[in-house]
């Protein structure tokens, strides 16, 4: 993992994206997954569109080829998820710095992760919300403020919510 994180830090340092952060597994039990979701703030293209092309180009230069929606970086399929709304931008700006195997990286605050799951609203996200609320010990007051600011329902203690 630290080799993958080192590449992400390198891309961040070179301005390929501005800030990146990871998510839920920092707060809850390990759940089987086959890719690593990395949220990023992207520079806008000339047409004002969000595009992952600069990331893929930078990774190709470093010897990592995109495959479908992933890039395998040091053994781990990474999927880059651009921040496409104010909630995600806020979440990335306020992400915490942590160390994994002595390598610095960033993780979204659990309260922002909950709100992102609520906003996305798939069955999988509802389950993630439940896990985060029940086992992640969010700051409920802070969570409530984010929900209000972004017009989202505040999940109950058991993670249930209605959109």
């Amino acid at each position: 993992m630290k080799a993958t994180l080192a590449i992400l830090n390198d891309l961040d340092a070179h301005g390929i994206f501005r800030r990146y952060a990871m998510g839920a597994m920092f707060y809850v039990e390990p759940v089987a997954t086959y890719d690593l979701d990395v949220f990023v703030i992207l520079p806008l293209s000339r047409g004002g569109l969000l595009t992952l092309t600069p990331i893929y180009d930078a990774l190709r230069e470093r010897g990592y080829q995109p495959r479908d929606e992933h890039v395998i970086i040091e053994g781990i399929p990474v999927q880059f998820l651009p921040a496409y709304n104010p909630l995600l931008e806020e979440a990335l700006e306020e992400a915490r710095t942590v160390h994994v195997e002595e390598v610095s990286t960033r993780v979204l605050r659990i309260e922002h992760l909950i709100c992102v799951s609520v906003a996305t609203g798939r069955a999988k996200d509802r389950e993630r919300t439940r896990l985060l609320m029940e086992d992640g010990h969010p700051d409920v007051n802070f969570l409530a403020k984010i929900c209000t600011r972004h017009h989202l329902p505040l999940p109950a203690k058991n993670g249930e919510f209605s959109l």
Partner: protein
Amino acid sequence: MNTLPPEMEAALAAKQKHRRELAALPYEEKLRILLRLQHLSDAIRQTRGASARAWPLDEKTLLPMSSAHRS
């Protein structure tokens, strides 16, 4: 209102306790558990003829095991 028998309540409480203990593990330990989950899942997938998808990371070092670390 449906109520569960005490034995079931106790079993569910134990599961929740275990989940919270898992949640509190260091991230590196969670990665090791994730690798084991992926290998377990692959063992089942391969009985259906599907290909393995587990990350090729060494469980001890969490580093790539071979040259298969780039796409």
